[in-house]
């Protein structure tokens, strides 16, 4: 591995680029926290980028008083957890069958599932809302969880499909010769190999669900079922917006995900190394 070290030393510009890029990536997080402690004047005119002149914690008080943050938070968590579980499960099963098992319409089915990625949610909002009503899902957690799972299947299937396709066929051949069933092969050989992909998709789907606004605002009307992004509605008036308090609401919604991500990314990293160990 010494040759790689050498390369690194020869390449300080790469180092600088990476660290600069990291800085640029982290800044919005800091900016959001600054923002949540400012008033409209500071946000837009006098001081849009720097730290707040004085800390307006009242924005948080304001945000917290507008809606029931703990309830919204728990709902977001529950919906996201259920969505992640459901979508990963369905997508992994489907894409394994589509990518590796032999049946006539596997490619067609794969493309069919992909179409879900091509349609922006606004387009099908009304038929979807009618469907949610007809399935008796209106005003239940299912009103969000079921569509969220369904809409996450397309993208996650595509990713898993790609990963399954890169696995050498010899693995299944030897499993077959050893007399393992297809289920056993799937659960004990295939799943561990695509663990890095699963770990990555867990984060993606979690974020998708956590930040989703368009469906939530229309499908959920019951106060006790609302998720965090809906809190923003309380700050946007027809003509004016309380941006500081909105910033506070956004920080309240985003900070936990950043923390969850930072904690969880360790797990992802482990999954990634385990994955490659199996293969190497």
């Amino acid at each position: 591995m010494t040759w790689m070290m050498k390369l690194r030393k020869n390449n300080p510009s790469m180092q600088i680029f990476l660290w600069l890029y990291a800085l640029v990536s982290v800044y919005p997080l800091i900016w959001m926290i600054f923002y949540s402690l400012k008033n409209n004047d500071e946000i837009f005119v006098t001081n849009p980028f720097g730290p707040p002149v004085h800390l307006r914690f009242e924005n948080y008080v304001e945000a917290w008083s507008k809606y029931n943050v703990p309830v919204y938070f728990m709902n977001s968590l529950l919906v996201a957890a259920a969505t992640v579980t459901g979508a990963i499960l369905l997508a992994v099963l489907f894409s394994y069958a589509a990518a590796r098992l032999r049946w006539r319409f596997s490619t067609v089915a794969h493309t069919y599932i992909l179409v879900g990625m091509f349609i922006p949610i606004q387009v099908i909002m009304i038929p979807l809302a009618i469907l949610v009503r007809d399935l008796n899902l209106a005003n239940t957690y299912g009103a969000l969880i079921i569509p969220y799972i369904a809409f996450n299947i397309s993208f996650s299937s595509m990713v898993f499909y790609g990963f399954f396709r890169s696995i050498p066929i010899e693995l299944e051949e030897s499993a077959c010769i050893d007399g393992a069933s297809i289920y056993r092969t799937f659960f004990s050989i295939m799943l561990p190999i695509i663990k890095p992909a699963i770990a990555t998709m867990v984060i993606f789907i979690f974020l998708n669900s956590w930040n989703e606004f368009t469906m939530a605002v229309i499908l959920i009307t019951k106060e006790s079922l609302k998720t965090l992004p809906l809190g923003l509605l309380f700050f946007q008036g027809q003509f004016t917006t309380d941006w500081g308090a909105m910033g506070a609401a956004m920080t309240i919604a985003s900070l936990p995900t950043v923390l969850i991500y930072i904690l969880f990314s360790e797990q992802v990293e482990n999954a990634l190394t385990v994955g490659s160990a199996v293969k190497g």
Partner: protein
Amino acid sequence: MKKFALALMSLCLVFVAACGSAGNNVANEGNKETVKEAANEETKTEEAKPVKLRIYAQYADDDTKLPYDYAVAELKKEMPNVELELEVQAQDDGQKLKTYAATGNLPDIFGAGLDIISTFKKSGNILELDQYVEQFGFKDKMQPSAMNTLVTDDGHTYAFPYAGNEFVLLYYNKELFEKNGVKVPTTYDELMTAVKTFNAAGITPLSLFAKEKWPTVSLFDMFVTRNEPQGIKKLDKGEASASDPAYKEAAEKIVELVQAGLLPKGATNLNYDQAAALFHQGKAAMFLNGQWEIAESTKHLGDKVGWMYFPGTDAANYEASKYAFSGGGGPGGYAVNPDTKDKELAAKVAAFLSLKYAEYKYTERGNPLVATKVDKAIVTEYPPMMQQLSDDIAKISSTTTFAWGLSDAKLKAAIEDASQSLMTGAYSAEQFIEDVNKAIPAAK
């Protein structure tokens, strides 16, 4: 292993089913509604049963929150058995409300503007209120001058209004005009001189929150009204073409002024807070907004702020069109879902809320331009600018409409987009005429 897979799948199904069953009660209620309604009719005489009504209304800033809270508090005194469950209106071009209508999940009472009224009228999602207007004597409670906000073009009432006829005003910072030796413009030429002088002094001539499209339409409309008092309303009726001289000149004038630096940099990306800050902090000499801005501007600028009559093409035109105001009002307010359990009750609540909403705006928010009569004394004294406007109201010879009061949705979208494009200075009057004319409805 096979068992495991089976178990996994049945787990999925159970999960789906569980999600569904929790919702059954709620959805079934909808089906039972018709049965219940019949029952309700009979028992109504018993009175004062607790009723829960869903309402979808504006509730975000002081101008919408405080009047709403007041109206609800008053309702509690008047009809203690009625409980309102509020859903905050989203700023989404009616997407949510229309989806509600499509799924049969419309709240009992909802805030409706002209666009919602005309769409829902066609699909039968809004209750015609004529009978209740009669029954509650609502007409007598209206300001005679605001009758247009109660009745739509087809002669029926679909919503109890609270907002009256409102106006677009051109605010200006007197101090900045004096300091820079600029005459308050009365003609287009003087306006151009003002633009040039302010630019040379590093002051933005006119601040406009053009990220929202309606202020750009209003600015266009102000120019049009110099020669065509009906302004954009005439286009809406299909009685005029954008290539008619009054409209063509207005577009050309705006392009000319914008190119000379009328607006702040990036005006089409300024929201209200940003544009207002420029004016309130003395960085912009003029500001265009509705008369509801009076309170806010007075708060920041005190007696330095005033509003001016819009400049005319020349001195004679200025005098002649002085009282041709831009803005106006239209049908809108609290509407009722035709499928609500107790129509009369919902209508009664809607009417009551409108009256109280207007009352608060009138007494506490310094806004006399409400739809209904208010017999209570004013708590918050009118600022001088409002006094000036009140004094003028009788003299106003004509009004037009705000963009949201246009009845033809296609024209509305087209003129909003085209007017905003005018603010970039890179869009010609010819393009404007072409784009708007494509959307003008056939004369009714």
